[in-house]
Every structure is written in structure tokens, then in C-alpha cells.
């Protein structure tokens, strides 16, 4: 047996890995799990909005004045690019693998709402991320000349913005309802005792991410009294 004779050297082997179906999936999963880490950090920061406008603004200020931030941002963009490029290539290859589909395709019930909609929820997340970064980070549109907390509140006051935000983080939750356990299986971990637990934990994680992010537009957009919202602070992030 001659194992891929054209690929005897190490760098070639690594390239072969990255181009292989399994290697691509492992990279998508690795980037996805690291993005989950980002989501947790981002959510914890955002939840400071519940503590108070001043605390949130101070946190944001500390973040943007950190000289390492551009590095972290570049890493984040890199993760998104790896995740998106490889998952889109995998999805296209999968479509090509069955050029003529079934007239009736019922299956035996293993698929989940999350697994069926990965490409759809992924696209929704991408659209949301672009709008999200444009409106909240680069502050295109929305109230001008106010601190970050007031700016975010201004956006959440727009019900369409808040509803889209909730739908989009719902998409993130659906993406992760399949993604978390899928990534762990892709990494090669499957165990008769732990895998059922991992699947439940993945669902719980997905739900917490959804509920955590959704709580902000729901509370500040629909429940919170705008009159109490404003709290002129020293040192906004702008």
C-alpha cells in the first residue's frame, strides 16, 4: 500500500490535511469553538449594561484603550474568515456530491432544526455581524455625540433594530444548538457515557448565549423606562 506517494514531506502533509474533507471540518470546528469563547467574553462585557451606564462605559473605555485590542480584533476577523471560507467551500462540495436529489427525502429522524439550517443561520449571523459592527462599533447612524451606553440605548429604542437583534442572536443559538456537539464529534471525541451529556450541555450553552444576548435589546428596548435611561456620564467611549 502506497500512502499518497506524492505527499511525503511534512509541509505537504499539512497542506493535504487542510484541503481534505476531514481537515477542513476540523478547522471549521476549531474556529467555531474559539468564536464561542469570544461570544462568552463579549456577553459578559455586555451584561455590564445591567450594572449601570457608567460601569459599562468604563469597561468599553478600558477595552478600546488597550493597545492589544487591534491584535485581538485581527485574530477575531481571522477566525471568522477561516470559519466562513472553509464552511462555504464544504457546503458547496456537499451540494456537488449529490447533483440529482431525491423526489422524496424523509430520513430517519436524526437531523435537528439546528443541523438543517447551519448555512442559513451562518449567513444570518454574518449579515448581523456587519450591521452590528457598523452601528455599535463604528456608530454609523443612531444618536450622535453621546456616550456609548446612550448610543446603544438609542439603537435599542428602535423596535425594528431590537427585533432584528433578537432574531439574529436566535440564529446564533440555533447555529450553536448543532454546532457545539458537532465540533466535539469532529475533534474525534465520542464516548458512550459523555456524548449524551455533551449534547445536552451544548444545547444549554446555545440557549444561554441566546438568552444572554437577547436580554439586552428586550430589556433596554421594551421594558426599561427611557426616562431613567439617561445618565450623563463622564468618560464615554466615543
Amino acid at each position: 500500500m502506497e500512502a499518497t506517494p506524492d505527499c511525503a514531506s511534512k509541509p505537504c502533509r499539512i497542506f493535504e490535511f487542510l484541503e481534505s474533507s476531514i481537515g477542513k471540518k476540523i478547522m471549521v470546528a476549531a474556529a467555531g469553538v474559539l468564536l464561542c469563547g469570544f461570544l462568552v467574553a463579549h456577553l459578559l462585557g455586555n451584561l455590564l449594561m445591567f450594572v449601570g451606564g457608567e460601569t459599562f462605559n468604563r469597561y468599553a473605555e478600558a477595552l478600546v484603550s488597550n493597545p492589544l485590542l487591534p491584535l485581538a480584533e485581527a485574530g477575531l476577523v481571522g477566525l471568522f474568515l477561516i470559519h466562513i471560507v472553509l464552511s462555504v467551500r464544504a457546503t458547496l462540495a456537499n451540494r456537488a456530491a449529490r447533483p440529482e436529489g431525491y423526489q422524496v427525502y424523509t430520513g430517519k429522524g436524526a437531523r435537528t432544526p439546528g443541523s438543517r439550517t447551519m448555512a442559513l443561520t451562518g449567513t444570518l449571523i454574518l449579515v448581523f455581524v456587519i450591521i452590528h459592527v457598523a452601528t455599535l462599533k463604528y456608530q454609523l447612524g443612531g444618536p450622535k455625540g453621546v456616550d456609548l451606553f446612550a448610543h446603544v440605548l438609542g439603537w435599542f429604542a428602535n423596535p425594528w433594530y431590537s427585533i432584528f437583534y433578537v432574531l439574529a442572536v436566535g440564529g446564533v443559538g440555533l447555529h450553536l444548538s448543532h454546532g457545539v456537539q458537532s465540533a466535539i464529534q469532529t475533534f474525534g471525541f465520542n464516548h458512550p457515557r459523555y456524548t449524551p451529556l455533551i449534547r445536552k450541555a451544548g444545547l444549554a450553552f446555545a440557549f444561554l448565549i441566546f438568552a444572554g444576548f437577547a436580554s439586552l435589546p428586550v430589556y433596554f428596548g421594551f421594558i426599561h423606562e427611557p426616562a431613567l435611561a439617561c445618565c450623563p456620564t463622564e468618560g464615554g467611549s466615543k
Partner: protein
Amino acid sequence: MNITLKVWRQKNASQPGALVEYTVKGIVPEMSFLEMLDTLNEQLIARGEDPLAFDSDCREGICGMCDLVIDGRAHGPDKGATTCQLHMRRYKDGDVVTVEPFRSKAFPIVKDLVVDRSSFDRIQAAGGFVSTNTGGAGEANAILIPHDKAEKAMDAASCIGCGACVAACPNASAMLFVAAKVSQYALLPQGMPEREKRVLAMRAAMDAEGFGHCTNEYECEAACPKDIKISNIARLNREFFRATLISE
């Protein structure tokens, strides 16, 4: 009882096919699904029409030839069973049943419901074996194998290569088949000398045939007539990752 069949008819690989409706009369519950198709063919031949082409061989669930997608399910509605193990007692008079071939770019249609699965043979030939000089049979207890490993290897080796995993996978991925074949050797001492070479070669052969990527939909496991577990796919991923890192 009478059954209405909607069956995929296609003259050959280059001509387009379509579902054609037939009413099959005089079916008894004791018939197998394949015997019901035999009955249809007798009726077609009696009318002077071209009989339906479909594969079968052992008709007892061990050869993996009877590849049909029945009402959108590979090997029909039952769990852990091949099409030839499906019986008409599952159906009642007047039922409408759709029958299609396994669909994958790597399983081109030959005629009607018959597909060419030689892509599986090429993957197997790339590494699904152990190279050993056969002499007299060795002493069976000379190589110690832990019981749980032996069981897992036997479970993986029960794959009959029917291709239902590919047919059922939304991505037409062959990962469960390749995982079973890699696992049955990776678990046993006899498979160790060629462990890395094997997984690298079989992965390359699998991708070269144009099968899709695994996205962990687990429909393969649900459709497998031999109940091959997706833990084998996890093992394949580990084996491939490990071989990439350590093989020269």
C-alpha cells in the same frame, strides 16, 4: 392487497429519468419488498414492457446489494435492516410507495434503481486490508486483544458496504463506511503496522471519488442496516489527525 408504486425509471446514465406509476396486484403480507418488485416485473413482462432493474443477491441481509430508497429512507422504514429484510406486512392495501435509487455523484446510475458502487471498492483497495504473508494459521492466543477492542472491531467489521450511509447523508458523505473500514483495523494489533498509511490513503481515495463532507447530521447511523455507530467517525477523525502529525 394492491400497492401503487412510484418507481424511478431511467434507461441509462446519460438519459434523464422520472418517477413512473405502477399498480402491483396480488401482493400478500408474507412477501418481501423485493418479491413485491419481482411480482411487478412478472406483470411488466407479461405486458411486454421492459422490466424494472434493481439489485439484490443474498436476500438475507448480508451482501449489501439491495440498495433502494423507499419513501425517502435508505433501505425503507425499519431500523437496522436491509431492503431485502423488509416485508409487505409493513404496508396495507392501497398504499402509495415511492422507490428511488441511492443518489450520489460517486454512485452513478446504471439503469433504473441500479447504481455503480465501485467507488467503495476503490476506497477499500486504497488501504482497507492488512499486508501479511499468509502461512499456516497462527496460535489464536498468541496475540492478546482486549475484549472491548475485539467487540468494537467486530462491530465495525459488520459493515456490508451497502452505501446506505451515503444515500441517507444530506451531504452524500461516505464517512461512516470509511470510518468502519479504518476502525476495524485501527483497533486490532494486526492493523498497527499500516495504521497511518491506511487512513491517509483511504481518506484521499474517499475525497477523490467526490463524496461530501461529514456535517454530523447522524442520518448515516440511523439508516445503517448494521447499526454502525458514529463513534467510528470520531475515531476516523482522530486517526487522520494523528497520522497527519506523526507519519513521515
